[in-house]
C-alpha cells in the first residue's frame, strides 16, 4: 500500500481514522500519566499527616506559654531552695541555725560523701547532698527540729533515723541520729 492509497483510505473513512487517532492519543496520555494520581495521593497523605501534626501542635499549645512561664517560675523557686555541695560552711550554718531556733543541741554534724551515684545515662539536674547529724533535746524540741528540717528552707529527705532516750531516766534528753540528704545543685 502506497502513501497515496493510505491517504485515500483515510479520506474515505475520516471518522474512523480520526477517532482511532484520538483514542491512541488518549491511551498514550493515560499511559504517560498513570503514575501521577498515586504519586499525588501519596504526597497528599504525607502533607495531610504533616498538616494534622501541625494542627495538633497548635491545639495542644493552648496556654503553653503561660504554663512554661509558671514552670520557669517554679524552677526559679526550686533553685532558691537548693544547697551547693561545695559550700560546706553555708551548709553547716543551716543546721546550726536550726539548732538555735529549736533549742536542740547538735552533738555531731558531718557532710558525707554521696554513696549512690546517679544511674548511668540518667540526666539528673540536681544532686542529693548527704549529711549525718545527731542532736539532743526534749521531745518537743526534737519534733520541732525535725519539722523545720523537713519543711524548711531546703528540700530534705531522711534516709535513716535513730531516736532513743534513757530507759532508766524518762526525763533525760532524747537523742536523735539522722542520716539525711538535702537536694543540691552541683
Amino acid at each position, binding site marked *: 500500500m502506497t502513501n497515496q492509497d493510505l491517504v485515500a483510505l483515510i479520506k474515505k473513512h475520516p471518522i474512523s481514522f480520526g477517532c482511532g487517532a484520538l483514542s491512541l492519543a488518549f491511551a498514550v496520555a493515560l499511559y504517560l500519566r498513570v503514575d501521577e494520581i498515586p504519586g499525588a495521593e501519596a504526597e497528599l497523605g504525607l502533607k*495531610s499527616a504533616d498538616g494534622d501534626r501541625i494542627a495538633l501542635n497548635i491545639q*495542644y499549645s493552648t496556654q503553653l506559654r503561660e504554663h512554661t512561664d509558671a*514552670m520557669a517560675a517554679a524552677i526559679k523557686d*526550686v533553685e532558691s531552695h537548693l544547697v551547693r555541695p561545695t559550700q560546706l560552711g553555708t551548709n553547716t550554718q543551716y543546721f546550726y541555725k536550726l539548732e538555735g531556733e529549736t533549742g536542740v543541741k547538735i552533738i555531731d554534724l558531718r557532710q558525707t560523701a554521696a554513696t549512690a551515684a546517679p544511674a548511668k545515662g540518667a540526666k539528673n539536674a540536681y544532686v542529693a547532698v548527704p549529711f549525718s547529724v545527731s542532736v539532743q533535746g526534749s521531745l518537743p524540741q526534737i519534733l520541732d527540729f525535725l519539722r523545720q528540717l523537713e519543711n524548711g528552707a531546703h528540700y530534705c529527705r531522711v534516709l535513716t533515723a535513730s531516736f532513743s532516750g534513757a530507759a532508766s531516766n524518762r526525763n533525760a534528753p532524747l537523742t536523735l541520729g539522722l542520716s539525711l540528704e538535702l*537536694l543540691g545543685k552541683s
Partner: protein
Amino acid sequence: MLSLLKKKGETAEVAALPAWHPNFRNYEKLPDIKVVRTAFFVNGAAIFLATTLGIYFGFKEWQLHVVNGQIAHVAGLIGRDKRVSDQAIAVFKKFQADETRVNEVDAFIRSKTLISVLVLRLAETLPANVAIDAFELRETGLTLRLAVRGDAAAASGYATAYLEQLKLDKQLEQFDEFNFTSTPMRNPATGRMAVEFFLRLKPAVAAAAKPVRKPLL
C-alpha cells in the same frame, strides 16, 4: 419439478462446471448495498472507543486536579501554621526540660516518709501502758523498742493490742508488715517488759510521672 427429479450427483456436477460467462464484478468499487452499512458499525465503534477513552482520561485528569487542589490547600495551611507550630515546639522543649526538673524534685521529696509526722503519730496513739525506748528507721523498715508496764501476762496483752492497733492505723499505710522481732522479755533493771516490733516499709514503687501537657511532635 424436474429439478427435484434430478439426482444429487448431477447437481454437484453442474455446480463444479465453470460459469457460462466471466464475472467482471469489482467488489471493492461496488457500493455497499447492505441495509446498515459496515462503515456505520466501524465508525460507531471508533467513536465509542474514543469517547470512552476520552471520558476516562478526563475523569482521571479531574481526579488529579482535585488531589492537586487538596495538596495546595494543605500546603497553604502548613505554610500558615508551621511557624506557630515550630515556636510551640521550641517552647514545649523548654517546658519539658523544666518539667523534668520539677518531677525530679517531687520524686526526691516523696521518696521518703516524713519522720516528724511518723513520730508525732506514734506519740499521739501510744497506749498508756507502753513507752517507746527507741525508734530506728532504716531503709527496710522501722524498729520500735518498747517498755510495757504490768505483769508479764498483761504486758504481753498490751503489746499485742498495740501491734494490732498499729496494723489498723490508716496513717501508717507505708508499712505492710507488723511483727514482733523477738520474744518479749522482762527487763530486770526497770521491771518492765521489753518488746521489739518491726514494721516493714512497703517496697518503693516509682510512681510514673504523668505528663502535665500533651506532647508536641
